């Protein structure tokens, strides 16, 4: 297959050394410099291959290649599908393509048939032949169609409730283009914003457009992106840097990973535009090493962008130079903090430094630096393309645009969703997310990872935007949303997050290093039923001091999970402290298992499965649990068929 990016014939002279300013548009709407039906045809064919317009003969089997689907076997599925297509003799009009994440990870591996939009879930390699038969005869494979809990089936992609409530603008390419082919990105309109910026806009106009759009940083703090760029532009220094923060470390968050895996060029394009706007010629992507697929795709994207002259010297003959290097993180959560991230790129230990000076004055190697999150940068080409006015129609007045959330926890449909800012928690959790799994009741939602807060039922109608969430002690964070059902213990949840921040504290400042340790120890005592009311007072004082005196955002925000659970679930803390009871039955030391003699039939199943031989009893006689041996694993409860095992 000829690459859309390659020169169509000898008349095309574009190369990184002899760049043509029309190059990108020429690839999709050209050729411009000469007239050749053959060359025009080549372009059209390619674009059709990517876009798969309806009405044609050509069909595509899209297989999700996100991390979730890959780990449930989508790579093998691609092979089986290709084989089946060949066997059926359809290879001339059916292509099998692996894309980025579709977001519906719970139901993976996902297969999407284009252009019909038929959507198959939980597909196994053994299903390949049936899917290919569908392409041959038009018969939908019913058993692979998505069904909700009520049994309704949704064969079409856009009908599935999970997608129906979403507004896909950032994720639109994820799941549609091949992330390892720059030509796919260009075919769907990629790099056009860069052309627009380089040919028709001044750096000041670009910054103004971003400022007008109201775009706010998606990394968590919500700082206005245009303002940041303007500050860096004002800094009168020759060398400036653009950094893409791809050190996504919040437990349960995978928005940035999916964007990088599914649409890496949109981030590169955003970075080049940022470079042009602030007057920088070098960018860095700081990506965590735990994202091998994202790193692989970024490497390939950078290499391809260089190969066709979209990165490097004199980009598209504009006279503007910009290049990007990739830096892999070494697995420290704190390196998501801007100054620690910069120290890490410089080869130092990733520890935050005191601000000011802000990075826009003195950042990487003491040069003015713009540090933006992956999702923020992916918004940039969109804003340039749509125009600020159009972009502002999405989202709220103070938080325009969409936000990608990683839904996880006790949901029917965990996964990746993109919704306009301002949607309520209820719409996201119960609409898109499908509500709570196993018919249980909603208890809390944890937003923004270890720096965020837990919100309760009374907040479900709160619009999700930067300002509404901060008014109730939570934060949008980077977009992790962990939903918990009635079975969750909020003291245990606070303990979990504190354990995380304590482990990830860099150790530089006393309150974070020592304070989180003591907070964690108090929470652990609570979970064991050993805490006193004095401990609670100490915990609240530590929260206050750690929040007020820590050096960086990690320390300042780490009491949030404790403060918010204390605010909204205080009675649970009191139950642990005063009554030595865990109402949710999660904290092992506070739970007791016993066997109801009237219900026990003496079947011996619990006895057989108990890993520590804590259950005694004769066959057909009621059994009993020896408390001194029991490790509270709960196996007996789950194995008993007669509901004789009771947890109290």
């Amino acid at each position, binding site marked *: 297959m000829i690459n859309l990016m390659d020169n169509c014939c000898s008349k095309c002279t574009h190369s990184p050394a002899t760049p043509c300013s029309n190059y990108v548009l020429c690839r999709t709407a050209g050729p411009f410099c000469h007239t050749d039906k053959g060359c025009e045809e080549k372009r059209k064919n390619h674009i059709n291959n990517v876009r798969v317009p309806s009405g044609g003969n050509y069909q595509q089997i899209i297989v999700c290649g996100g991390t979730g689907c890959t780990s449930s076997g989508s790579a093998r599925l691609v092979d089986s599908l290709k084989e089946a297509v060949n066997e059926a003799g359809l290879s001339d009009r059916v292509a099998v393509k692996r894309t980025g994440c579709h977001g519906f990870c719970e139901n993976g591996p996902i297969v999407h048939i284009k252009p019909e939009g038929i959507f198959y879930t939980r597909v196994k390699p053994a299903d390949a032949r049936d899917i290919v038969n569908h392409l041959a005869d038009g018969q939908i494979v019913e058993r692979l169609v998505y069904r909700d809990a009520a049994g309704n089936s949704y064969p079409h992609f856009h009908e599935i409730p999970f997608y129906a409530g979403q507004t896909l603008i950032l994720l639109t390419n994820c799941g549609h283009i091949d992330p390892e082919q720059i030509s796919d990105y260009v075919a769907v309109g990629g790099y056009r914003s860069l052309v627009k910026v380089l040919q028709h806009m001044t750096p000041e106009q670009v910054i103004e457009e971003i400022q007008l759009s109201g775009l706010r940083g998606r990394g968590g703090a919500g700082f206005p992106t245009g303002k940041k760029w303007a500050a860096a532009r004002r800094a009168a220094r020759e060398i400036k840097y653009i950094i893409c923060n791809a050190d996504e470390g919040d437990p349960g968050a995978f928005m940035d990973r999916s964007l990088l895996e599914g649409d890496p060029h949109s981030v590169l394009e955003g970075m080049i535009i940022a470079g042009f706007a602030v007057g920088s010629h070098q960018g860095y992507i700081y990506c965590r090493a735990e994202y091998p697929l994202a790193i692989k795709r970024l490497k390939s994207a950078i290499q391809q962008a260089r190969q066709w002259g979209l990165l490097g010297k004199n980009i598209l003959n504009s006279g503007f130079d910009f290049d990007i290097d990739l830096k892999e993180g070494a697995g420290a959560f704190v390196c998501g903090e801007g100054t620690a991230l910069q120290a890490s790129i410089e080869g130092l230990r990733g520890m935050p430094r005191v601000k000011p000076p802000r990075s826009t004055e003195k950042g990487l190697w003491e040069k003015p630096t713009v540090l933006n999150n992956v999702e923020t940068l992916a918004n940039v080409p969109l804003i340039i393309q749509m125009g600020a006015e159009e972009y502002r129609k999405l989202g709220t007045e103070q938080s325009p645009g969409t936000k990608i959330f990683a839904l996880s926890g006790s949901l029917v449909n965990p996964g990746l969703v993109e919704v306009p800012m301002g949607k309520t928690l209820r719409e996201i959790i119960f609409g898109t997310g499908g509500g709570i799994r196993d018919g249980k009741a909603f208890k809390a939602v944890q937003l923004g990872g270890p720096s965020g807060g837990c919100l309760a039922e009374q907040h479900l109608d709160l619009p999700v935007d930067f300002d509404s969430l901060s008014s109730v002690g939570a934060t949008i964070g980077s977009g992790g949303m962990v939903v918990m059902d009635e079975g969750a213990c909020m003291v245990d949840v606070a303990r979990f997050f504190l354990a995380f921040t304590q482990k990830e504290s860099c*150790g530089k400042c006393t309150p974070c290093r020592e304070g989180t340790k003591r907070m964690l120890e108090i929470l652990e005592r609570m979970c064991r039923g050993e805490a006193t009311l004095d401990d609670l007072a*100490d915990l609240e004082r530590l929260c206050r001091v750690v929040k007020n005196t820590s050096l960086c955002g990690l320390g300042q925000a780490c009491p949030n999970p404790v403060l918010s659970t204390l605010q909204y679930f205080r009675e649970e803390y009191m139950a642990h402290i005063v009554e030595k009871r865990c109402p949710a039955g999660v904290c092992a030391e506070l739970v007791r298992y016993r066997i109801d003699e009237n219900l026990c039939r003496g079947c011996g199943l619990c006895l057989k499965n108990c890993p520590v031989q804590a259950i005694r009893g004769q066959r057909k006689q009621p059994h009993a649990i020896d408390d001194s041996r029991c490790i509270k694993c709960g196996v007996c409860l789950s194995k008993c068929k007669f509901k004789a095992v009771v947890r109290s």
Partner: protein
Amino acid sequence: MSDITCTINDKSVTVPRGTTILTAAAMLGIDIPTFCHDPELSRYGGCRICVVEVKGWGQLPASCVTEVREGMEVYTESEKVLEARRTILELLLANHPDDCLTCEKTGACRLQEYAYRYGVRKGAFPGACHAYPVEADNPFIMRDMNKCILCGKCVRVCSEVVGRSVIDFSFRGFHAKVATPLDSGLLNAGCVFCGSCVEVCPVGALTEKQRIGKGRPWELDSVTTTCPYCGVGCQINLLVKEGRVVGANAAGHGVNGRHLCVKGRYGHGFIHHPERLTNPLVRKNGQLHEVTWEEAIQEVVRRFGRIKQEYGGQAIGVLASARITNEENYLLNKLARLVLGTNHIDHCARL
């Protein structure tokens, strides 16, 4: 550079732009406690003991790294500040050995001083405490990381002033500690044992092996003198207890400031050594005999005179010492060429 006027504890002060709250407070005679701050080292802001309250600010900023702004209203001992400082001290003490009775640093320890100033005792937070082995596998420095409060001064002085960078932070969270690469010990890490880290350590984590048990800080007299080793002329304080030199540290002024080399800081064992030469000796009939300086010099003159007479001045070679000054070297050169009549003069070029 324009000046900035602000108030600290309701007292007005005008300082140059870029002045930190800590410095501005010092100009008003207000003392703010610090562990990690050192005027000679880069701004760090890690220990947070120097936090202050600024009217209108949500957080309590660290005064050692926060520059004053026009109209700023700072309170250095408000209720909020005191709660934070006491809590930070409690946190540090919670993970610090209860060892003041025998600790070498007692009396010169900042942690002890501030615990006393703010009435903080150990015991507020029961829980885990470090149990690192004490590192003493070198002749000079004892590292007890259980006492370390991670102020990072040793790390910075080693990299910023001495230029060796043999220590840095390692590990994370509660387990963060200052260590040599791969925790391999100072000897393996290329440490030159200048002792600057010991000099800046505010607590008893870094102490001098030679001084263990040799005297409390308040028992020592300090005698300023010039280091007897090379010609640089570093100013040192000999620390004297009951007429005996028990250690030395930099005088804090002169060419060396607060820094010394391994010899200047630790090379004083010879002072009270039983084999130290205190009088000139002359060998007579194969035996060394104590003589007066007059007698000794006469002997040297006589013997050199004889060599010169018999074989000529060029038969004599002169080797100058690096311990002497330029001026003394110049005089030795004169002595060699004009008095002894030799061109053979060289310098040992080492200490």
